[in-house]
């Protein structure tokens, strides 16, 4: 076992490679469909199958999607793009090479900002983002003598987002991945589903003594199908490497696969042997030149990004960081909230409504905000009702709001009136209620007057009960104070 003391001598170094399947209708270099979940080998063409004499042709939208991701990450966009062949033999790769980018990826550099659970903010540096195509799917079924191959996925466009070895904890890796997922979903270029494989992550992990200048030998870990498993695999790999180093053994630069059931990694193959991909420029594709005009039209069509909305919610709406984080977690929630804030000025109440009753309703029924029955306008009216002192926050959320979910057409005011919930702020009608409460609690009143000020809450409770929850708390408190303190 690895002691905490030994572990603390080492620094963990992580770089991630994230593959994102692009949401185009057709493949990267051919026009067969990218649709998921169809019968095997039904979305195929002579190009996908690598028949002789066929020529690939680049999907314009896939290029635009890659550029969008680069702009969102502050990368430099490469103006003259060529493609490269990466040569290797595997049955799910009919051509015997993958068309990818080698020396001049479409996006160079850039970063992804992350915020850790202790509030630390930093930017994770990217090396590059490049375009490539997915491979087919091989199945090795137990009891089957052959491997079965389905080429529906072969040629589906991917971008590969490669970070620098710039992360130092599994939490950083986890948050980085969450941010990448958020970005591709905001940009609408990938559905971000890790379980279904539309977002995939390989982790390069190494360990070195604190203060060492050189990185340790890195090991690439594959096969993690959730963010949590990426974090688990990294933790395990870090400890495995430290144990090896401590016992004087050498780390082998290799690819290892993660087993979610055991939480362990196992060797797949050693890199030195097979990793000779013999990249060379793809002669079948002409260069893709990104003109100033094309770039600015893509720039002009960029949606708001999570970091921009976060900044706006904190700086313009004056919301706490926490609120801004929750509200920008999904693009749709953020856009709903943004619209809501054009209709009310009580941003904090709007945020409380979104994070409380709205989110819990959506979570409970596993609904998407697009299925939410109440529009921003009605929700703004509910906030207005609170601001006008007609109902208090708890009546608004517990009585009026549930009715609004059922009767989306009714205004919150109409509902509050129907249910007889309009708050009473009239001193004339509240004074007799307060007086009768005090008359019924003579002993407590005496205790209050002798210093038990905490009884105020009890009196308030009684007033609310007698008024059936309709007493305006501010007015009732004022009357209570006046009557008790005199």
């Amino acid at each position: 076992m690895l002691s905490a003391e030994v572990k603390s001598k080492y620094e963990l170094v992580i770089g991630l490679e994230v593959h994102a399947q692009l949401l185009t209708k057709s493949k990267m270099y051919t026009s067969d469909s990218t649709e998921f979940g169809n019968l095997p080998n039904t979305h195929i063409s002579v190009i996908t199958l690598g028949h002789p004499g066929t020529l690939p042709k680049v999907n314009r939208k896939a290029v635009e999607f890659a550029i969008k991701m680069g702009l969102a990450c502050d990368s430099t966009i490469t103006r003259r793009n060529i493609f490269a062949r990466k040569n290797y033999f595997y049955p799910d790769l009919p051509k015997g090479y993958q068309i990818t980018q080698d020396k001049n990826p479409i996006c160079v550099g850039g970063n992804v900002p992350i915020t850790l659970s202790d509030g630390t903010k930093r930017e994770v540096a990217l090396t590059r983002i490049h375009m490539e195509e997915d491979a087919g799917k091989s199945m090795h079924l137990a009891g089957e003598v052959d491997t079965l191959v389905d080429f529906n996925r072969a040629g589906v466009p991917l971008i590969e987002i490669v970070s620098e070895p710039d992360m130092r904890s599994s939490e950083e890796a986890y948050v980085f991945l969450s941010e990448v997922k958020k970005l591709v979903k905001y940009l609408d270029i990938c559905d971000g589903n890790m379980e279904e494989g539309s977002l995939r992550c390989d982790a390069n992990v190494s360990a070195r003594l604190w203060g060492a200048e050189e990185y340790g030998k890195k090991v690439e870990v594959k096969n993690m199908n959730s963010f949590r498993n990426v974090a688990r695999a990294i933790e395990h790999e870090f400890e495995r490497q430290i144990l090896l180093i401590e016992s004087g053994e050498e780390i082998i630069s290799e690819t290892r696969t993660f087993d979610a059931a055991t939480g362990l990694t196992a060797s797949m193959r050693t890199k030195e042997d097979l990793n000779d991909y013999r990249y060379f420029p793809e002669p079948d594709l002409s260069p893709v030149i990104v003109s100033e005009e094309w770039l600015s039209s893509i720039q002009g069509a960029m949606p708001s990004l999570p970091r921009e909305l976060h900044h706006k919610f904190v700086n313009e709406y004056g919301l706490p960081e926490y609120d801004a984080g929750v509200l920008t977690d999904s693009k749709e929630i953020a856009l709903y909230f943004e619209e809501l804030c054009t209709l009310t000025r009580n941003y904090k109440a709007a945020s409380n409504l979104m994070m409380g009753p709205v989110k819990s309703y959506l979570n409970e029924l596993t609904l998407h905000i697009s299925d939410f029955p109440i529009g921003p306008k009605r929700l703004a009216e509910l906030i207005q009702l609170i601001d006008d002192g007609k109902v208090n926050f708890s009546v608004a959320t517990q009585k009026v709001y549930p009715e609004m979910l059922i009767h989306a057409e009714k205004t919150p005011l109409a509902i509050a009136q129907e249910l007889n919930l309009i708050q009473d702020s009239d001193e004339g009608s509240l004074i007799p209620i307060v007086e009768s409460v005090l008359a019924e609690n003579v002993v407590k009143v005496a205790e209050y007057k002798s210093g038990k000020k905490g009884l105020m809450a009890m009196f308030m409770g009684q007033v609310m009960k007698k008024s059936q929850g309709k007493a305006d708390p501010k007015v009732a408190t004022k009357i209570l104070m006046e009557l008790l303190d005199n």
Partner: protein
Amino acid sequence: MKIDVNTLKKIAHLARLEFDEAGAEKMTQDMSQILDWVEQLNEVDTQGVEPITTMSSEVNVLREDAVANHLTHEQGLKNAPQRDSDYFRVPKVME
């Protein structure tokens, strides 16, 4: 440029080709000669010349993102050396 037997073996492995060991000496000589011949290109002054990657001078030959041009399932599987009703079958590969 001199090719040795180890390089020859590596190239054969990468191309998944087998060769008769008896002919190895002859093959290394042939390959060395081919490389020597190609190396004459190094004599040309290419200072300031952009490398070309395709024989066409066209750029931005792009497709719009539309689905078309499928092979049917049957057509696709037709030439497979081994197949079943759904899949291409290949000798078992395990990593």
